């Protein structure tokens, strides 16, 4: 048990990969065995990750916990270094929670090349967990890149008609971002020894050799020259903004989502997009605080554009999946809006909304996937009056629609409300535009629901549709439970987030606690002069 406790993060992260290696030795004709095995691996992976939730010390949730550190590439100063704080705890739980549901949803949807499919799904799971637990930038980058490959195959092999185009677009887009990210990482890596030599406290804690230790980078943040921060922020911005995706880098997302198989979309929306926002939270904000403050207007504007533009485009979509995809752009805009409000409310809401988006958009993709599997079309005009033949389906769809548009009692409300409070504190205009996004969001979602579920069921193809079976219910019910839980009793989440968020605000926006907003705050450079 002690061994387990000491190595729990590695075990959680590599659990799916180990399962994949076993899977490789299975006969590819024996599809049932492969399906059972893969589902069992991710489900047990979730169970293995549960102790994290209970063992996590909430009193010090801003400290890295469950830390493991083993030298890896010593000549570079790269370590195998993992650990989580409150923010990553939530993201990891989200990943291990969505994994089994996505896996289960592909039971009948994937009929050809089953073995490869599950192998890639398992590989993807490890890649995502690896990104969240890494405390070493080199290791982070390796996972960040590795993850692209299985996702590329999931879209490219099991996707829709334009899958090749969508897959390559996804890959190249994110790759361009990643390589620029790498340059930013290298810049930090090489400036570290200079800074460590000047500041004894950093040198004492992290040494003076070049290092990829993220905590060392956090420690040197106050001493980084503004000019340097500006450039690195830009490099990080491209890398992370493509992943989020922020306007105007979002164009890969609708293609990737629409063409990906259902489970791929769930993972893509539920977890992959969070890597971009996580990148901002973990790297851009705390390592480059001065530049972050400088870039607030740009980031907020882009976030607001994404909210409104994403919502407007979503409204016009004739395809259900594309609609949900564009709603993702809008929702991620909210996440960014809250984050760059740079106050506790905004950041808290931003992180909670990341989880919410994973839950509700993940569920919506599952819902669209279920109807697609029955009808092989996602055209909204093909449907209507489905609530008569599929009452259970319609109920769940309704709950998730409400969750997505932020109805009180459900999770979406908590996130959006806190974000709006944060945005309001930052500037009323951001809040006004953000608020219009909520209205638009309600419009397109409710309109979608009305067009597909209500009215007369006239299309003969729709009259004999079967309602949800047990397996489909099993993929959706856990999401509903969590949606209600966050909606009714979000305190556990905020309890975990409070400390790391406050720490973040203290680094980026120290004036906040003195009662000033970042908008009129003075930017003080390390040397002491006021900008």
């Amino acid at each position, binding site marked *: 048990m002690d061994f387990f406790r000491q190595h729990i993060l590695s075990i959680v992260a590599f659990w799916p990969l180990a399962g994949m290696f076993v899977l490789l030795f299975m006969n590819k004709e024996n599809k049932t065995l492969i399906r059972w095995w893969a589902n069992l691996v991710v489900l047990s992976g979730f169970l293995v990750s549960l102790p994290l939730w209970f063992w996590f010390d909430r009193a010090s949730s801003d400290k890295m916990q469950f830390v493991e550190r083993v030298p890896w590439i010593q000549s570079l100063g790269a370590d195998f270094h993992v650990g989580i704080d409150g923010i990553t705890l939530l993201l990891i739980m989200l990943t291990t929670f969505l994994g089994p549901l996505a896996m289960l949803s592909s039971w009948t949807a994937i009929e050809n090349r089953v073995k*490869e499919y599950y192998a890639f799904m398992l590989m993807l799971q490890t890649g995502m967990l690896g990104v969240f637990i890494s405390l070493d930038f080199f290791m982070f980058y390796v996972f960040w890149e590795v993850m692209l490959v299985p996702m590329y195959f999931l879209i490219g092999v099991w996707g829709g008609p334009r899958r090749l185009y969508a897959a390559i677009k996804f*890959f190249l887009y994110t790759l361009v971002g990643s390589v*620029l990210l790498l340059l930013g990482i290298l810049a930090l890596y090489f400036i570290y020894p200079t800074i460590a030599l000047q500041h004894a406290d950093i040198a004492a804690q992290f040494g003076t050799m070049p290092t990829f230790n993220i905590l060392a980078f956090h420690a040197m943040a106050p001493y980084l020259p503004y000019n340097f921060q500006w450039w690195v922020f830009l490099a990080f911005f491209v890398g992370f903004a493509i992943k989020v995706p922020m306007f105007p880098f979002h164009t890969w997302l609708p293609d990737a989502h629409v063409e990906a198989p259902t489970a791929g979309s769930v993972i893509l929306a539920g977890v992959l997009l969070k890597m971009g926002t996580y990148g901002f939270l973990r790297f851009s904000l705390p390592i480059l605080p001065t530049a972050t403050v400088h870039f607030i207007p740009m980031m907020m504007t882009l976030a607001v554009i994404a909210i409104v533009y994403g919502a407007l485009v979503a409204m016009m979509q004739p395809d259900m999946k594309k609609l949900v995809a564009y709603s993702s752009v809008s929702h991620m805009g909210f996440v960014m809006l809250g984050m760059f409000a740079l106050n506790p409310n905004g950041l808290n809401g931003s992180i909670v909304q990341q989880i919410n988006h994973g839950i509700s958009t993940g569920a919506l993709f599952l819902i669209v996937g279920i109807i697609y599997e029955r009808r092989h079309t996602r055209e909204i005009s093909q449907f209507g009056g489905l609530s008569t033949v599929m009452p259970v389906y319609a109920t769940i769809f309704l709950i998730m629609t409400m969750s997505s548009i932020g109805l009180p009692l459900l999770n979406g409300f908590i996130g959006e409300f806190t974000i709006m409070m944060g945005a309001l504190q930052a500037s009323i205009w951001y809040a006004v535009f953000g608020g219009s996004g909520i209205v638009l969001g309600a419009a397109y979602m409710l309109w979608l629901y009305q067009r597909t579920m209500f009215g007369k069921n006239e299309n003969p193809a729709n009259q004999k549709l079967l309602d949800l079976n047990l397996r489909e219910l099993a993929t959706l019910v856990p999401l509903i439970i969590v949606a209600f839980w966050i909606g009714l009793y979000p305190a556990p989440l905020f309890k975990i987030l409070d400390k790391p968020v406050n720490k973040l605000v203290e680094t980026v926006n120290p004036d906040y606690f003195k009662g000033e907003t970042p908008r009129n705050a003075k930017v003080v450079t390390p040397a002491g002069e006021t900008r």
Partner: protein
Amino acid sequence: MGQFFNVQDLGAIAPELELMLFGMILLIADLLVEDKKWLGFISLGGIAWSGYFLWRLHGIEVSAYSGLLVIDQFSWFFKLLFLLAAALTIAVSLKYLDIEKEHHGEYYALIMFATMAMMFMAGAMDLITLYISLETMAIATYVLVGFLRGNQRSNEASLKYFLLGAFSSGILLYGMSLLYGMTGSTRLTDIADALDQRSLNDPVSLIALVTISTGIFFKIAAVPFHQWTPDAYEGAPTSITAYMSVAVKAASFAMLIRVFMIALYPLRPHWVAILTAVSVLTMTVGNIAAMTQTNIKRMLAYSSISHAGYILLGIIAGNPTGLTAIPIYLFAYTFTNIGVWAVVVALRRKDIIGEQIDDLNGLIYKQPTAAVLMLIFLLSLAGMPPTAGFIGKYFLFAGLVETQHSTLAIIAVLNAAVSMYFYLRVVVAMFMKESNEKTGLSLSPGILVAMGVALIFTLWIGIYPDPFINLARQAVFLG
């Protein structure tokens, strides 16, 4: 000064002597042995034996033949690379030559001679040694490119390669003669000392620099002197293409590093400018041209052009990180590329030419293992972690960032990202297209062994690169 050479000097070139000896033996054995496959095994034995001698020279630093040759970590590293490349090439060739019905003993002998010449090139500290070994290598390669005598394309490739090669050698020699005229010595270190005395903008040294660079750019296939590459790579027997794209290229880089980092080092401000322009052009043109190819040999030829552009970045950065990158990159590139070419060699089956990317369609259904290995090699070429190619690129980019070549770094990484596009085209063919014919690849045991070795090193360098980084660091601190 004592005598011109002494007996100890023979020990210093023992690995080369082994190769020459076995080359001779192969020529004689060719008359006696009916099944030419055995000649391949003999040559593998020769390479192993030469490798044994090389192993014993590890860590020894001597200057032999009164300074014409040097045994140092740098040459040791490259010699190891050449031996490995030659061994893998021979492993890949065994069955291929049977299919092409051109199985002759000279093939192996020529590889031995070319490898021997490369090993001399890596150790040369003198323009004369450098030039003679370069020509020995080149002549052996010309013949190997045209080895498919009945094949029109092979003949054309050989002739083209020969003409342009001879032309570029002439230009190179012209530059060397200028250097000799200016400095009165052919010794690289003496040249550097003499150049140091002259003004930086001395017109004669500039002409010498430009002509020598041009000659070398031809050999490493840098843009704008790359035109011969696609044709030569396409026409040559595929196994020889593999050999050229790794060993010949690595040898030319060894020469480039020696000449630029020692003899021409006083002119560094000038050649950094030249190399920067050439490197950017080479990366970009190579990658863009590769995108439009449908013939996989031509595509890989352009890909190898762009890789030469990346490697130049290491010399441009010129700091320990950047220089370390070159051996690591070449090492990673050698294994990865041999792996890729092994698959292309296996595409050549009875009655099927197998050179189009389409010929790989649906490989995953027919030979899943080969497809997955090819995928890993292609990702490594594109520089994705955790493969060897990423570690190589990491060092190159790190060198640029460390020396604050920001613009160049951005151009380089964007090129790396773009190159993914054409590697993915092959992946698409293998994994996402339906196969158009029943026959799979002709995977002979030799090819499987080569692919296995390539895979092990590609992943090993990618996941735990420490030993290789140390090896490369020792290699580049040129003394």
